[in-house]
C-alpha cells in the first residue's frame, strides 16, 4: 500500500514537472504573442503606453533630487520637470499609469534611498484611491528589473493576475532582457527626460456629450489604500523626507460630477493636519484659470499649456513652503 502510494506520488510529481516544463517551453517558443489580450492573467505592458519603461530606467540613475513626484498619470502629465529645473529645482517625475498609493509606497521604498529627495509630492487623485492596485502593479513589474521591492510588491498584493503576469514577464525576459526592450512611440504624447510625459494633444478629446453621459461619482479611499498612505507617511518620516499632498487639477465639468468632493478633501486635510503635511488642492484655486477645452487633453489629464500654468502656480506655492530656498541654498 505504502509502495503504491509512493509510486503514485512519484508519477504525479514527474508528470507535473514534465507538464509545466513543456508548458513553459511552449510559451517561450511562441514568444511575446503568448501574452496578449487573450490571456487575462498573463499581461505585459513592456515598453507600452505611459513610458514606465523609460521612467523607471531613468529613476535608477536619479540622485539628490529636490522633489520626487509620485502618483498616477495625472502626475506624469502634470509636473513638467523642465519648468522646475528652470526654477532651480531638481525634480524627478515617478508618476506611472493608474499608480495607486500601494504602488507609490513600493516605488518610494525602492527609489528614496537612491534619489534622496528633499520632498516627495504625492498626488491623491480619487480615481485611483479605491482601486486594487493590480493594473499599475503589472505596469511596474513589466517595465522594471525583478528586484526585491518589485517582488515584495507582488507578494504583498496576493493577486493571481499579478502573479501570472510576473511569470509571463519572467518568460518574456528570457527572450528579451529588460535592457533590450524598446519603448513604443505614441502620437499623442512624448517622453521628456526626468519622467515627464508631454501631451501633444491641442484640445480636450472629451466633448460635452461625453461628460453629460457620465454618471455622478463618489470619491472614496478604500481601507487598503488608506493603509498604504499611512505607510508612505511613516516611510517619508523615517527617511527624513518632507511629504506634500496634492490634488492635481481636473476639468471643472468632471469635478462637478464628484458628489462628495468636499468630504473627500476634508478627509485628506484631516490626515495632513494630523501629520503636519502641507495639502494643496488645485481644484479649489481661483487663480488657476484652466480652460477645459484647451488646457486639458481629456477630463482629468493636463495638456502642455495646462501643465505650464499649473506648474507655475505650484512653484509659487512651493516658495511659500520654503522649498525653493532649499534648492537655492544647495546651489
Amino acid at each position, binding site marked *: 500500500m505504502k509502495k503504491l502510494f509512493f509510486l503514485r506520488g512519484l508519477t504525479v510529481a514527474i*508528470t507535473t514537472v514534465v507538464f509545466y516544463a513543456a508548458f513553459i517551453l511552449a510559451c517561450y517558443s511562441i514568444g511575446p504573442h503568448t501574452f496578449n489580450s487573450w490571456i487575462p*492573467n498573463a499581461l505585459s505592458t513592456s515598453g507600452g503606453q505611459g513610458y514606465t519603461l523609460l521612467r523607471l530606467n531613468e529613476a535608477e540613475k536619479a540622485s539628490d533630487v529636490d522633489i520626487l513626484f509620485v502618483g498616477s498619470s495625472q502626475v506624469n502629465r502634470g509636473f513638467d520637470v523642465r519648468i522646475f529645473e528652470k526654477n532651480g529645482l531638481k525634480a524627478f517625475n515617478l508618476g506611472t499609469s493608474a499608480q495607486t498609493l500601494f504602488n507609490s509606497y513600493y516605488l518610494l521604498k525602492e527609489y528614496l534611498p537612491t534619489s534622496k529627495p528633499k520632498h516627495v509630492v504625492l498626488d491623491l487623485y480619487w480615481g485611483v484611491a479605491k482601486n486594487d492596485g493590480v493594473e499599475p502593479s503589472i505596469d511596474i513589474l513589466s517595465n522594471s528589473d525583478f528586484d526585491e521591492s518589485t517582488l515584495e510588491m507582488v507578494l504583498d498584493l496576493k493577486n*493571481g493576475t499579478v502573479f501570472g503576469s510576473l511569470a509571463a514577464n519572467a518568460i518574456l525576459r528570457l527572450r528579451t532582457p529588460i535592457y533590450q526592450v524598446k519603448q513604443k512611440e505614441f502620437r499623442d504624447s512624448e517622453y521628456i527626460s526626468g519622467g515627464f510625459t508631454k501631451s501633444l494633444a491641442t484640445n480636450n478629446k472629451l466633448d460635452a456629450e461625453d461628460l453629460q453621459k457620465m454618471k455622478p461619482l463618489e470619491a472614496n479611499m478604500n481601507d487598503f489604500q488608506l493603509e498604504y498612505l499611512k505607510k508612505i507617511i511613516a516611510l517619508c518620516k523615517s527617511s527624513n523626507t518632507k511629504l506634500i499632498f496634492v490634488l492635481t487639477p481636473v476639468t471643472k465639468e468632471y469635478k462637478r460630477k464628484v458628489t462628495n468632493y468636499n468630504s473627500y478633501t476634508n478627509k485628506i486635510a484631516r490626515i495632513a493636519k494630523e501629520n503636519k503635511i502641507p495639502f494643496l488642492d488645485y481644484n479649489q484655486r481661483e487663480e488657476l484659470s484652466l480652460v477645459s477645452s484647451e488646457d486639458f487633453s481629456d477630463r482629468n489629464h493636463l495638456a502642455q499649456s495646462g501643465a505650464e500654468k499649473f506648474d507655475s502656480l505650484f512653484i509659487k506655492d512651493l516658495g511659500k513652503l520654503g522649498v525653493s530656498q532649499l534648492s537655492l541654498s544647495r546651489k
Partner: protein
Amino acid sequence: MLFNSFEFLIFFPVVTLLYFLLPHRFRWALLLAASCVFYMFFKPVYILILFFTIVIDYYAGILLEQSKTQKQRKRYLTASLVANIGVLAVFKYFNFFNDNITSLAEVMGVTNPIPYLTILLPIGLSFHTFQAMSYTFEVYRGNQKAERHFGIYALYVMFYPQLVAGPIERPQNVLHQFHRKHYFNYADAANGLKLMTWGLFKKVVVADRLAVMVNQVYNNPTDYEGIPLILATIFFAIQIYCDFSGYSDIAIGSAQVMGFNLMENFRRPYFSTSIKEFWGRWHISLSTWFRDYLYIPLGGNRVVKWRWYYNLFIVFLVSGLWHGASWTFIIWGALHGFYQVFGTITADARNKMADLVGLNRFPAFHKFLQWGTTFVLVCFAWIFFRANTIHDAWYISSHMFSGLLEGARAIAANPDGIRLQLLYLGQSKEIFTLAIGVVVLLILIELVQQQGSLRLRIASYPFPVRVAIYNALIVAILLFGSFSESEFIYFQF
C-alpha cells in the same frame, strides 16, 4: 474566509493535515476551532450570534427528547424556532419591514417612530439558521437522537465547508459522521481535490468573468436596451449557476478530502424541461428543506386543489424572502410560485395540445421546446433576482426586445465603440470571446456529465494523462481565472 482566497489556500491544507495527524478524540475540537477562524474572517463579533443559537438549539434538542408530553415538546420546538427566526428577523428582515412601514406611514401622513438599525447582515445567516432548525425539527419528529456532545453539535452547525453557503445539511446525514473515525483515503482525497478544482474553475473562470459584464449592464440598465439586456440576463443565469454550484463543489470536495460526505446541491439544472424539474436540480438542499419543513406541514398536495396551489405558491414566496429582504427577491419567489401553480393547472391541457398538434410524434423536438421554455422562464425570473431595484427590473424586462433591429444594425455597421458597448458589454473583443468560449466549454462538459460521470471517464485514461488533464485545468484557472477575490453571490443570504 473566501474559498477563492490565498488565505484558504493555506488554511485548507493545514487544517486537513492536522485533522489526520490528530487523534480522533481531538478532531472535533480542531474542526470547530478551524470553523470559528473561518467564520471570524468575515466579522469576528458575529460568532456570538452563532453561539447564541447553538446553545439554544443544543438544549432544545435535549429537552425535546426528554419531554413526556406533546405539549412540552411543542413548547421546546417553538422556543428553538423563535430563537432562530428571531435572529433572522432582527438581522435580516427588521430594516426591510421597517422601511415598508415608513413608506406606508408616509402615505397615511404619519411618522414611523421605529428607528432604523445600522447592522450588517451576518454572513451565511440564512444557511446555518436553516441547518440548525432542521436539527430541532428532526429531533421533534423523532427521526434524530438529540446530540449530547456540545462540541459535536456546534460543529454540526459550524462545519466550515458548508457554514456560509450550504449545502444545508440534515442531522441524519452529518452528525454521525463527526463521531465516526475517518482514515485518510486516497480515492476520497483525490476525488475531493478534483471536485474542488472544478468548483474553483466554475467560480473564477466562468462566474467571475461573466460577472464583470453582467454588473456593467445591471448596474446601469437604463444605458441599454435590446441585445445587451438579453445577453447580460443569459450571462447572469450562467454566472449564478457557476458561482453557487462552484461554491457547493468546493464545499463538498473539501469535506470529502477529510472523509465527510455532504449532499449534492446541483444536478445540471439548466437541462430541466419543466420548472418543477428545475427545482429538483437547483439548490437541492434548500428545496428539499422547504419541502420537508414547510410544504408538507402545510399539507403538500394531500389537500383540496385550491389549497395545494396555495401551498405551492406560499413555499416559493417564502423561498424568495429567504434569499433576501427585498421586493426583488419576493417577486422572484412569487414568479416561481406562479410558474409552479400555472404549470400544475395546465399540465393536462398542455399534454392534450401537444397531442393535437402532433408534437408527441417528435419527442426530441418536444423536449427541446420544453427545455427552451423552461430556460426562458427561469431567465425572466432571474431579472428580478439580479436587478438592484424593482424599477430596474421593470425597465430591463420591458426593454429587452425594444431596439433589437436598430441595435443589430448598429453592430453590423461596425463602429468599434458601438460594438464594444452593445455586443461585448464594455469588455474587449478578446475577453468577450473568452467568456463565450468558457461558457461553451462548460455546456459541453455538462452535456458529457449528463451521459455519465466525467470523472469516471477520465479515470479510465492512463495515470500520467489524468495528471496532465488536471494540471491543464489548474493552468486554465491560473491563466483565465478572475482573482479579484469576489464574494460568492449566495454569501449575502
